[in-house]
C-alpha cells in the first residue's frame, strides 16, 4: 500500500500522490503507514539525487509534495506518535556569522534529513557561540559550516577555534562547504573535511557517525 505512495512521490507525481493519500485515508488506511510510504519515497528521491538522476529542482519539488502530504496526514496522526523512526545520529548545520546565504545549506539539511540523520538547522549568520552551545545541548557528533562569501573563511575558522577553546573539538567532526570552499580553505579553518555538494556532506556524516 505505502509502496505505491513511495513510488508516486519518488516519481514526483504531485496530484496523484495527494489523491492517493486522500483516498487511502477515506478507506481507513493507517496514516502511519502512509507516512512511512512518504518517507520511503523521499529516500528514493535522495538516492536518485546521489546518482545524478535528479537535480536540485527535483529535490525542491519533492519537498513541496511531502509538505502537502504531511499537512493532510497530520490531523489523523496521534499526538503521542513517538514516531519510532530510528535516526542515524545528530548533525548541526548552519551558515557562519556574517553570511546570510541559505540555498546550499538548505540542500545539505534536506539530504541529511532524508538520509536518516537528525538535523539541527541553526539558520544563517549564526554566531560562533551558538554552534558551541548547540553542541553542548544536543551532543551532536557532526557539525557542518556553510558559507558562500570569502568572509566565511574567517568565520569558519573562528567557529572551529571557539569549538576547540570550549574543549569540544575532540568530540565533534567538522565539515565545511559552500561556493568557494576547497582544500586550501579547509586547511585554513582547521575543519576535518570539506564537501563539494550535499551528497558529499551525507557521505561524510555517514563515515563519521
Amino acid at each position, binding site marked *: 500500500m505505502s509502496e505505491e505512495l513511495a513510488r508516486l512521490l519518488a516519481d*514526483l507525481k*504531485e496530484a496523484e500522490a495527494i489523491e492517493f493519500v486522500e483516498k487511502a485515508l477515506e478507506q481507513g488506511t493507517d496514516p502511519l503507514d502512509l507516512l512511512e510510504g512518504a518517507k520511503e519515497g523521499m529516500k528514493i528521491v535522495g538516492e536518485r539525487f546521489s546518482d545524478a538522476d*535528479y*537535480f*536540485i*529542482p*527535483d529535490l*525542491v*519539488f519533492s519537498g*513541496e509534495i511531502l509538505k502537502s502530504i504531511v499537512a493532510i496526514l497530520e490531523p489523523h496522526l496521534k499526538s503521542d506518535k513517538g514516531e519510532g523512526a530510528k535516526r542515524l545520529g545528530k548533525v548541526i548545520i548552519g551558515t557562519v556569522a*556574517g*553570511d*546570510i*546565504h*541559505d*540555498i546550499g545549506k538548505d540542500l545539505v539539511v534536506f539530504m541529511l534529513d532524508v538520509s536518516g540523520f537528525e538535523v539541527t538547522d541553526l539558520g544563517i549568520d549564526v554566531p560562533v557561540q551558538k554552534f558551541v552551545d548547540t553542541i553542548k545541548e544536543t551532543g551532536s557528533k557532526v557539525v557542518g559550516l556553510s558559507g558562500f*562569501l*570569502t*568572509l566565511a*573563511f*574567517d568565520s569558519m575558522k573562528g567557529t572551529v577555534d571557539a569549538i576547540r577553546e570550549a574543549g569540544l573539538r575532540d568530540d565533534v567532526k567538522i565539515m565545511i562547504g559552500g*561556493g*568557494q*570552499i*576547497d582544500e*586550501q*580553505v579547509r*586547511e*585554513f579553518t582547521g575543519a576535518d573535511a570539506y564537501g563539494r*555538494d550535499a551528497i558529499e556532506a551525507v557521505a561524510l556524516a555517514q563515515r563519521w557517525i
Partner: protein
Amino acid sequence: MEKKWEEMSADEKQEAQFQKLLAPKDPEGNDLQFQSPEAETGFKASINRLKDAIQLKKLPDRVPVTIFPSMFPYMYAGMTVQEAMYDYEKCVAGYKKFVLDFKPDLPMGAAGPGPGRFYEILDYKLYSWPGHGVAPEHSYQCNEGEYMKAEDYDLLITDPSFYFRNFYLPRVFGKLEPWNMLPPLTGILEMYGVAFSFIPFGLPPVQDAYKALFEAGAEALKWAMAVGGIDAELATLGFPNIFGGFSKAPFDVLGDTLRGTKGVMIDMYRQPDKLLKALEAITPIMIGLGLGAAQQTGKPFIFMPLHKGADGFLSDEQFKKFYWPTLKQVMLGLIDGGCIPLPAAEGGYNTRLKYLNELPKGKTLWMFDQTDMAVAKETVGDTLCLLGNVPSSMLKLGTPQDVRDYAKKLIDTAGKGGGFVMCNGAFFDEANPENVKAMVDFTKEYGVYK
C-alpha cells in the same frame, strides 16, 4: 561612404564598437586628452589586446589580464564596505588606488558598492547591506524571497512593465508601495475620462512616493558623477573601463529576484508552460536592456552574471528546456546589435560547455569560476574567449608562488594560441594583495606571445 549602423553586419558593428573604444572622448565630447604618451599607448594596447583575444582571428601581443573583484578594492584601500557605499569620494579614491597599484589591463569601474543612501531613501528590501542587516565591513547580500507570487505569471506575461511598476517594485522598495495604486498608462486613450487616470497622482501616499523618488534620483546622480568621473580620470591615465551595461539570463531574472530559487524550481513542475511564456516575454526586454545601456555608455561589453544554469543546479534536460534557449536568444540579440556579451558563469559550467558552441565565433567573452579551463579550451576554444578561473580561496589563502604556478598552467593551456584573459574566477571581497599582484605581474611577464 560610411555605412549606416542598421545596415552593418554583426561583424562590422563589433569592429565599429572597438574603433569607438580606441578613440575615446572626454565628457564634453572632445578627443580624450591622455596624461602622457605612455598612457595613450597603454590604453590602446589594452583594447587591441582584448579585441584580438575575443575575435580569435589574430594572436594578441600577450594574454590580457584583469581583476573583477567584489569589495576587494575598497577593503584594500583601508575602508569598510559601509564607507565605500556612503562616501562616494572615498569610494572612488579607494578604487583609483586599487587600479594604480595593481594595474590591470581592463578595470571594471567603481560602481560595485553602489549608493548606500539611495537604498535607504527608497527602503530597498531585496538586499541587506552594511548598517541594514549586515556588518559595516561585510558586503551586501541578497534576501531571497517570492517577490513575484506563483499566481502572478499572467500579469507579468501580459504587461511586464505594468507588473513591475504596480506589483514587483512596490514589494522590493518600501517607499514605492503606493505605486500599487497607479493606473495603467495604456488606459489613457481619449478626452472623455482621461482625467480619471490621473487621480492617483493626487493622492498623498503616491505623492510621497514620488518625492522619495526625486530624492533617490538626485542621490543616484550624485553617485554616478563620482563613479563616472573616476572612469574618465583613469582613462586619461591609460586604464579603459570597457563595461557598457548589464543584462541577465531570463531564467535568472525569474529565479534570482522575482520567484526566487525555490519558486522558479517548483514552477518548472506546476506551471511549466507559464514559466516558458514568461521567459519568452522577458527575452526581448533583456536584449533591450543591454543594447540600451551600450548605446548610453558607448561601450559594447554587457556583463551577464549567470546563476541557475550552473552544473548541478538543473539537469541537462531542464537546462535545455528552461535555461539555455532564452539565454542564447539574449546573447544573439546583443551580438546582432554590436554588443559583446560577457557572461560570468558562477560555479561550474563543465556540463554546459557543449551548448556554447551554438554561439557565433569571436563574439563573446566568458568568465569561468570553477570550470575546467583545459577542457573548456578544447571544447569551446574555437568559439569564444575564456576569462578567469584563479580561485578566490587561493587569492586569499595561498602564496604568490601558488598564484604564479596556477597562472602559468592557465596560460599554457587556456591561453594557448590566444582566446584567453587572465582573471579571478569569482567575485571576491577579501584577498592577500600580494597574491592579486602576482596574478597581474606574472601574466604581463609570462603571458607574452612570441
